[in-house]
């Protein structure tokens, strides 16, 4: 039974209906003769408030609003990976083919391809007892992803009929089950799930495994755990999007959900183009074969921007339920917060800080809490990692979105304007960034990379912190007056900054660096430090050490030692020894 009403008032994306007509909160509605998609966001005795996910230009009072009888949901079935959707899961590629270059209002397309036949392997037989999350069939969705068709959560019973293996569309029946109360349910590949409700899980695990990204400053200094949360705040031009792209390309998640929320159209086009060509170094498949894009660019309707984050999360949770590790790149969460503010303003709600609604913090925390490393209903393990970009107003981290985000994430990667101006990329400031995962991940690093990894990492950070303290002095009196051991620290810190922290995303070898090489690089740099310190300690002046080009050679290790030829590090060790011996002999 669907309810309906007539439009009373229109104000931008918000429309109101007079009277209490029986609409439900969060119910999906179709608005007007173009059947624009909307959602009920407020109810009282006098009126129903609806946000519309499309442009409302041309709507007239009196037009019909029809309830869909269900909460705003996403359709889950094979065909999601490699696709590009708008904020409410409408496929943009298809819209483009049918409607040309522009996105018209009220487009009515199938969310997922209903005609395509998928090669299906049925995994259950009659008499099997299944529960929520049980895998009933498998479909190779892309070369990289085996899509597992699951019983929807909150449903269980005994299989009474199962189809043969073969080619099926997403709407053909695969399995019929009989529930405890005797009702039979037919299962297809398709299920629906409301976007604002987290999909249920068995239990949460502690985050004790890193998301390996191949980016040195992340893996070494500020690692993110699988199932963890991270925020990347930065003013415009500091490289948020570039960092997100790098993570989407190289991190070792099984699936990437890239949410372009209120960002540039050309950027989405770029991701689409690039990911369709780049090959995942680990599997040899195209990067696009493990990626789903959600594009709600800044000029698309604002209400859909608000929804796009939840759409992405729900897709991620669905794949997590299959036992995959999913990473969400949300670029940018500030646009989402601003969408909240814009809608809140139109609703004439009482504003809190900077005009943001008072519920900003609770919405943000609810969003980040949907991340996690979990045991799924079907017993498999999976994770959802959320990496959210934050675009603080004026680059000022004290604004509400950054501050509230900081409370709910455990890894904070602060991008720095000064570093970006000097084109030091990634412009992650090593002094203001932090990660709370280091303690949780220590065992993993010890067992999988090397017991000396964490000590080396701490030493590196230590040198950098000392450098910043020394720089305070240098700013006042110049570097010439420092004692030689402090000059050495400045020099080694320079090597770390240029040779280790700075990473060239456009260089074939440097764009992704395996953990092993990161460790070797750290060790060589620290070995150089150790030898230089010995020389300084016996009275050798820093100026003499600098004459040798050894520092420059160590800096360019990142380009000169290919990722696959790590034995070359031995040569560098010898080079440092020769440098040490040479200086000792000539100046004995």
């Amino acid at each position, binding site marked *: 039974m669907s309810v309906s009403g007539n439009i009373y008032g229109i104000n931008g994306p918000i429309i109101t209906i007079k009277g209490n007509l029986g609409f439900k909160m969060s119910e999906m509605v179709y608005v007007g003769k173009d059947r624009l998609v909307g959602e009920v966001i407020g109810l009282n005795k006098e009126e129903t408030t609806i946000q519309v996910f499309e442009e409302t230009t041309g709507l007239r*009072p009196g037009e019909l609003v029809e309830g869909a009888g269900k909460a705003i949901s996403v359709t889950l079935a094979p065909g999601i990976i490699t696709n590009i959707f708008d904020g409410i899961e409408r496929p943009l590629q298809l819209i483009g083919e049918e409607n040309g270059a522009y996105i018209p209002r009220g487009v009515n397309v199938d969310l997922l391809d209903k005609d395509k036949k998928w090669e299906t392997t049925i995994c259950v037989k009659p008499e099997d007892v299944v529960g929520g999350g049980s895998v009933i069939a498998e479909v190779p969705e892309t070369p990289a992803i085996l899509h597992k068709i699951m019983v929807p959560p909150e449903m269980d019973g005994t299989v009474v009929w199962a189809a043969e293996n073969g080619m099926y569309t997403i709407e053909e029946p695969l399995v019929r089950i009989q529930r405890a109360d005797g009702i039979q349910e037919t299962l297809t590949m398709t299920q629906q799930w409301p976007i604002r409700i987290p999909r249920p899980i068995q239990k949460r695990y502690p985050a004790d495994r890193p998301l390996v990204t191949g980016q040195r400053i992340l893996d070494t200094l500020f690692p993110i755990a699988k199932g963890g949360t991270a925020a990347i705040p930065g003013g415009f031009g500091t490289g948020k999007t570039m960092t997100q792209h790098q993570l989407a390309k190289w991190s070792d998640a099984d699936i990437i959900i890239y949410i372009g929320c*209120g960002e540039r159209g*050309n950027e989405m086009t770029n991701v689409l*183009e690039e990911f369709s060509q780049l090959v995942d170094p680990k599997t040899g498949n195209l990067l696009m074969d493990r990626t789903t894009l959600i*594009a709600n660019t800044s000029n698309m309707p604002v209400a859909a921007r608000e929804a796009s984050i939840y759409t992405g999360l729900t897709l991620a949770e669905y794949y997590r339920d299959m036992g995959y590790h999913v990473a969400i790149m949300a670029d940018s969460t500030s646009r989402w917060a601003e969408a909240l503010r814009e809608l809140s303003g139109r609703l004439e709600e009482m504003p809190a800080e900077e005009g943001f609604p008072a519920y900003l913090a609770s919405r943000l925390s609810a969003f980040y809490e949907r991340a996690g490393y979990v045991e799924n209903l079907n017993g498999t393990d999976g994770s959802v990692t959320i990496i959210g970009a934050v675009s603080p*107003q004026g680059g000022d981290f004290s604004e509400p979105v950054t501050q509230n985000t900081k409370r709910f994430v455990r890894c904070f990667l602060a991008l720095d304007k000064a570093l970006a101006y000097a084109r030091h990329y990634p412009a992650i400031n090593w002094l203001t960034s932090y990660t709370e995962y280091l303690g949780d991940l220590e065992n993993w690093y010890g067992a999988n990379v090397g017991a000396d990894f964490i000590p080396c990492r701490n030493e590196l950070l230590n040198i950098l912190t000392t450098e910043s303290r020394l720089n305070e002095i*240098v*700013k006042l009196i110049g*570097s010439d007056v420092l004692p030689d051991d402090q000059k050495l620290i400045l020099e080694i810190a320079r090597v770390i900054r240029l040779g280790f922290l700075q990473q060239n995303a456009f260089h074939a070898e440097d764009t992704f660096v395996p953990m092993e090489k990161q460790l070797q690089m750290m060790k060589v740099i620290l070995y150089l430090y150790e030898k230089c310190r010995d020389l300084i300690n016996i009275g050798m002046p820093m100026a003499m050490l600098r004459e040798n080009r050894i520092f420059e050679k160590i800096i*360019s290790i990142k380009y000169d030692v290919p990722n696959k030829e790590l034995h070359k590090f031995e040569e560098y060790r010898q080079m440092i020894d020769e440098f040490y011996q040479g200086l000792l002999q000539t100046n004995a």
Partner: protein
Amino acid sequence: MAIEYLGLSEINGPLIVLEGVQDAFYEEMVEFVVEGNRRKKGRIVAVDEDKAVIQVFDNTDEMSLKNTHTRLSGHPMEIGLSLEILGRTFNGLGEPIDGLGKIEPEVVRDVNGLPLNPCTREYPRNYIRTGVSAIDGLTTLIRGQKLPIFSGNGLPHDQLAAQIVEQASLGDDSEEEFGIVFAAMGVKYDVAEFFRRKFEESGVSSHVTMFLNLSNDPVAERLITPKMALTAAEYLAFEKNMHILVILTDMTSYAEAMREVSASKGEIPSRKGYPGYLYSELATLYERAGIVQGREGSVTQIPILTMPNDDITHPIPDLTGYITEGQIVLERSLHQKNIYPPINVLPSLSRLMKDGIGAAYTREDHQDVANQLFSSYARVGEARDLASVIGEDELSQTDKKYLEFGVGFEQEFVAQGVNENRTIEETLDIGWQLLHILPKEELDRIDTKILEKYYDR
């Protein structure tokens, strides 16, 4: 035809409330006739059943609650377009004001536009040579990009924009058709006149379409002016296969106008009194730049905005920077040193640069030289800070070299004549000459192979 309503319910600044209307829709165009002869236009900005709030694109003088007839047009704001618009001048509502008569429209378009589907966009890759070293070398402009100029009052942003237009349109491929769409929002008469004269001098007037809303024209009209201009630009680019450069000046006045109208509508303000939808509104303008797959033309935008109090964190430049693909920042202290163009390269950026330069487009060393110049010039700032504390004499040898490099960079690389049109080779070679001032081991951003090839040349 449409019903005419006699009388109004309320007049408040540029907003009018009309009650008892039927079938009005959001964003519908409205025509008023005041006292039987004066015509004004307006747009519906909110509807509540039979009550419509209308924004008037004119002043509301002489309007009373009784003397006005209102007619709903039944369509949103539209503009008639044909190739005739080239070489013509319109007011902010798209009505000709050059005395050459009406346009015979080939098509009529809704000026609000529709969002471009990211799947049908083509990623911009072709660079536009502007002949300005600081732009070509360090913040390369790409065809289909939106690259604003962040300026301040009294800085020569108009001169720079005019120079870019003039030199970019000379272009290397003269066979391609180019055009310029110029939208003035709330600028002074002199500024509009300056651009008109410049276009004439450089012989491009016949390719220019101008939309003028000067500072004494109605504020509400200002909100529609850039939409008119961009609709015209899209038509010329995507239907007539032209490469269109759109100059929007001054975006600050546009945002101010939005604040003014929003305040009179009684909306809840967010930052600095600007409405919460400022970001979305700016985005719907800026995102209309780009290239569409399968079409030959392109829309490149150079919006100009004056930063209030030279503050780059002010909401207008701030939100703009988050939408546009980079920015060119003008700096007052450089202007005071008599450097033209006074571009501060450090905060300036072109996001699309990385894909439009290099061996295939400009020269293989371009990215490395640019990175090195940025990095070294950032170091110059540190050396200058230090010198101001301990005195130049006390600086280390390296820091002194940096000071020398800094002066050279500003005087030779950034500074150039208003008519000087440098090739990309000239620009990069000046860059290399300047890098020679620094010791070779300081050049840590350049790939070893490129350093060997070009440094010792």
